[in-house]
Every structure is written in C-alpha cells, then in structure tokens.
C-alpha cells in the first residue's frame, strides 16, 4: 500500500509537469508561433500610452524575450526554490513554492489563491454533503420502487437537474428565494465559518442547493441504475434466504455494492470542484477560486491562470489517489499494484 502510494505520488509529479508545460505552451509558445512578438505579449501589461521602448523594456523585464523553455525552467525553479520578480526599481521575492507572479497586481499568485480557497472549499464541501445524501437516497428509493410515481417524478426532476445550467437555476433561485421571498442571502457575500458559522451557512445556502441540484440529479440516476443492477444479483437472493430483514438486505448488501462506482465519481467531482466552481461562484459572486480564475482570464493575467490550473490539477490528482486507495478498502477484490 505505502509503495503504491509513493509510486502514485511520483507519477503525480510528472503529471503536474505535463500539465504546466502544456499551459506554458498554450500561453507563451503558441502566440509566438502565431507571429506574436514578445512586445505584443508585454503590451497587455502596460498603459495605453506606452511607447515602443517602454513596451520593449517591460517585455525584457517579464522575460518574454527569452526562449519559452527558459521561462518554463524559471517557473519550475520558482516552484522548488522560490523566485525573485523585478517590480520596477526593486524586486519582489516570491517564496517557494512559487506558483507564479501576477504581472498586473504585482503579487505572488499562491497567497491570493489560498485566500480564496476557503470559499471554494466551503462551497464544495457543503454542496457535496447535500448532493450525496439527496442524490443517493433518491436513487435508492427510486430503484426500490421502480415505476412508481416517486420514481417517475424523481427521474424527471433529475433529468431537468442534469440538463439545466447553473447560471439558469442559480439566477432562478436567487430571484425567487432571495429577491422575492427574501429568505436567503442575496449573494455576493461570504462570511468565514470561524467568524460566524450561522452567517456562513446562510450566505452559502443557496449556492449549495444550486450546485448540489446539478450533481444530485446525476447521482440519483447513477445510484438508481446501480441499485437496480445490484438488487438483481444472486448474493441479494442469498441475503434474503438467510432471513435478513429487507432493510439490511438493501443497505448492507445492496447499497454497499452499488456505492462503489459512485465513490469514484464523487472523488473526481469533488477534486474538480475544489479547483473552482466557476459558474456557481460567478452566479453568486462568491470570491472563490473559480471567480478568481474568471477574473484572471478576463484580465489576461496568465500567471494567475497558470497558478489556478496547477492548484486545480493538484486537487484532481490527490482526489484520484484517495479514490483509488479507498476503492481497495471498499472492494477487497481490488489489489493496489
């Protein structure tokens, strides 16, 4: 097990290298291949009135004139050793691990991301609890009462859930619950949990429900399909033949098996969300990583985008690893090697 985890972590490092290299290629090499000069890249980060010489100086200072592999090497070096970035007359030190340095705000990227991480984590964790509980229980009941009114209603609603985009359901719920009924927060505010847990939950309630609705719909359908499969298995008949109460048969023998694929999807979904719930955060103006990355993209602040990609990939890779290890715990037939 330990050997397996170490091997997976080493593989993860290579994966991160590939991801960052791909970003670098897209951000810095592709424009050059398309004919953009270092000055063209630099011109985004100077005032409108800047003359050619100023732009050139900025391009040199930001390192755009150097070959892309040198820039990439400097980025990697920063990750391990930290880096110094020239900010006008002085230099700013970006301590290791340096995820990059914003040309616009002239700040290291990582602290900014870490600042926003609690928002995203709060959003993802709260929504995850809701969607797992709601999705899985709906799916189980639907499967056990296949063809019933409950089943048909739940599956229709869940079809809507997976089909409707967040910016539609989000705006709809905001309009109804916040602006018309006035029972939830109007969005745009976030209170740290350590400051006031009640306010924290109040602010996040609507984003949680909106985000959870999307996922719960998918999980309900997945659970239903899994339960229908599992409840037809021979070992379910064996469990009943032992004389177990139906509840035990369903939960201990049926659900336990049906949950295994859901665990996999859950890990990946959560990992992905921790890298920023872009639509939800934008719709509810929550200052999380998703909102941060949207702003960075809008402002062409490439190092910030790169930093978010790196953090996001890290979460996905870790989530993947956790899922794989858990899988072996849940299903004894799985061997980690």
């Amino acid at each position, binding site marked *: 097990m330990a050997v397996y985890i170490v091997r997976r972590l080493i593989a993860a490092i290579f994966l991160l290298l590939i991801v960052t290299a791909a970003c670098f290629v897209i951000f810095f090499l592709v424009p050059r291949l398309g004919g953009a000069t270092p000055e063209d890249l630099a011109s985004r980060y100077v005032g409108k009135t800047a003359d050619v010489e100023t732009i050139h100086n900025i391009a040199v200072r930001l390192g755009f004139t150097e070959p892309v592999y040198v820039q990439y090497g400097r980025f990697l070096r920063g990750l391990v050793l930290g880096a110094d970035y020239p900010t006008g007359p002085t230099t700013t030190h970006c301590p290791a691990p340096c995820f990059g340095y914003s040309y616009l705000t002239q700040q290291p990227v990582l602290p900014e991301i870490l600042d926003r991480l609690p928002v995203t984590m709060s959003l993802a964790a709260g929504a995850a609890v809701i969607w797992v509980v709601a999705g899985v229980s709906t799916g189980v009941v639907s499967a056990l009462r296949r063809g019933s009114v409950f089943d048909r209603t739940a599956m229709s609603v869940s079809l809507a859930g997976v089909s409707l985009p967040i910016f539609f359901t989000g705006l709809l719920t905001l309009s109804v619950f916040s602006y018309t009924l006035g029972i939830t927060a109007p969005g745009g505010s976030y209170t740290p949990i350590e400051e006031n847990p009640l306010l924290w939950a109040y602010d996040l309630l609507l984003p949680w429900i909106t985000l959870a609705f999307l996922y719960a719909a998918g999980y309900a359908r997945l659970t239903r399909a899994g339960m229908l499969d599992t409840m037809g*298995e*021979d*070992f379910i*008949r*064996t*469990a*009943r*033949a*032992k*004389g*177990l*109460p139906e509840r035990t048969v369903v939960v201990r*023998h049926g659900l*336990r*098996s049906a949950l295994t694929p859901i665990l996999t999807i859950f890990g990946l979904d959560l990992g992905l969300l921790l890298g920023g719930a872009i639509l939800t955060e934008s719709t509810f103006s929550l200052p999380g990583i998703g909102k941060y990355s949207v702003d960075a993209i809008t402002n062409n602040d490439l190092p910030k985008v790169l930093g978010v990609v790196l953090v996001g990939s890290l979460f996905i890779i870790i989530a993947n690893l956790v899922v794989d290890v858990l899988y072996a715990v*849940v*299903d*004894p*037939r799985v061997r980690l090697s």
Partner: protein
Amino acid sequence: MAEDVLAGAPESGPAPRPSGSGRPFLDVRDLRVHFPTDDGVVKAVDGLSFSVERGKRLGIVGESGSGKSVTSLSIMGLHKRGSARISGEIWLGDDELVAADPERVRRLRGETMAMIFQDPLSAMHPYYTVGDQIMEAYRLHNDVSRRAARKRAVELLDRVGIPRADARVDDYPHHFSGGMRQRAMIAMALSCNPQLLIADEPTTALDVTVQAQILDLIVDLQAEFHTAVVIITHDLGVVAELADDILVMYAGRAAESGPAVDVFTEPRHPYTWGLLGSVPRWDRERSERLLPISGSPPSLINVPPGCAFHPRCPYADRNGDRSRTERPELVEVGPRHLAACHMGLEERATLFHDEIRPKL
C-alpha cells in the same frame, strides 16, 4: 417409518392440516405460481403437490423452465409479492407459508429452512469475508456474541471440509475455489441447523470432479442433522446418487413421482423415458449413445392443451384425441408411484420393456 413421503394428492382448495404423527414435514399442496406479464400470464407452476419427510431426500428433475426453481423460491418465500401470484398451500411443520405473514416467513428463512444456490461465486457477497457471511446468518437467528459466532463459523467450515478453517474464515469468497465456495455456502445454509435444506442445482456450476464430493457432503450432513432435503436438478445422475424420491416436472406440473428406484427402473411416463434416454451411454454404439427428446419445452404462457407433453410425445396419437384435449391426472401406477399419462398402464409397461429399456 413407512408413511407416504411423496403423496401426490390431486386436491384442490384449502384442506385442513392433516394431524397425527404421520404428517409430512414439508407438504406442498396444489401449488400455483403465476407471473402476470405484458405477454400474458406465465404459469410457471400450475398445480403441484409433493411432500418430504425429515431425514429424506427428494430430487426434483426437469428441463429448464419446468418450474423447479420457481417452486423452491416459493417455499422460501423469495418471490416478489407484487410480481408473483401464488396459491395453494405449503406446510412446513406447523406453518402454512403461502398465506403467512411475510415477516413470519422471513424468520423461518435461514433458521428452519435454508437454501444452497447454483453458482456459489455470485451467490456470495464479494465484499464480505466468508466468515462474516456465515456469522451474519448465525447471529441473525441466535443471540450470541461475535466471538461465539466466529467459533461456530470455524467449526462449520471445518465440518464441510475446508482445510485450515480457522485461517480461511477471514478469506473473501474470491480467495476460494469453486468447490470450496459451495462448501462455504453449505456451511452458511447449515449454520442454524435447518430442518429443511433446498439445494437448487448445487453442483451445476462445479467441476465434475468436485460434484461428487459436494453431493457426498450434502448426504452426510443430511443424515447427521436429520434434515429434509429437496435437490433440484436437471441432472439425472445427481438424483440417482442421492434421492430417496423423485419428482419429474414438466411445464409446471408433476409428470411422474415416486420412490427413486421405481422411477428409474419402472418409469411410467414417456417424458421420464425421454429424460433417461438423454443420459449418454458410452458403452453403446455412437448412434445410440444419446436419445434426445425432440422439440423444446413448451411456452408457459400458452401451455399446450390436454397433456402438456403431447407435441413432443411419440405416443400421443395412441389415445385418439385425448392427449390434445384432456389433461391427464396423476394416478397411482405402483406403491406411492404416480404418473400422469393417458396411455393404458399395461400398454406403458409393455412399451417400456419392449421398446424403451433395451435402448437405455
């Protein structure tokens, strides 16, 4: 005791429970199991009666779709209440199971009656150890500590012939071979000393070399625990080896039933003759080694009128139109030996001795 262990009582309607010491332990009377489907009603079992004493073994034989497994699942109460329409009576000791409260039947399952299934790999939960699965059954019906249950599981595994049972009790089913899994299934079924054991094709999924061992084990344990055993199989070799009585099923009804010796040596139903002819004989000429029954089992939605076997029966024409219009009743053809055929008893005896037996 010489009471009727296999009485094919062709009765209809609920009858009072026979009292006295001579009553059979498992007594199935006029059992009907119908499944309504979009295509029509599937009459999987349609008027079946049989009984088994404790300490006796009944073999139920028939092709796929003859209603064998449906019968066993009805006894266990494992049909979904909504999808199956069950009528008739199933007496287990002093309990009538068809009309009983499902909760009552559930309590009997695993304790008074237990079942072994065909494929021991898919019949065990892949996520729990063999020991846990045995203990689960045992602790459900016995108020004992985990430790005591574990001890019991080890004893059972040891008793069914698992080597190093104290270590293997913590293994998962996929660590076991096919034969060992079936042994473990038997251990699980026997954990509460059931009085009725139903084995549904217990050796079909196993290697031929293991089959005999498993059958021996069932016989040994049955004698030891004085259990009533119902073995369901399509393999005449299996029933020949261990059944006291045989029930031959066709299209959800009994075609012939009686003591195993009689059914094997003096069968009185053309379908039984066909089954016997379907057992390969290696000491015969190639063309005579196997005498299959022509045609295929009937649809259980549109069961042929009259004798359900008549479209496949080579002798159906001998009775004029009767085979096509009138359903033959089970009648006694010998001591405790019943068969449902329109042909005259003498005619059948002559046919079997002159035409059938020489080819078997």
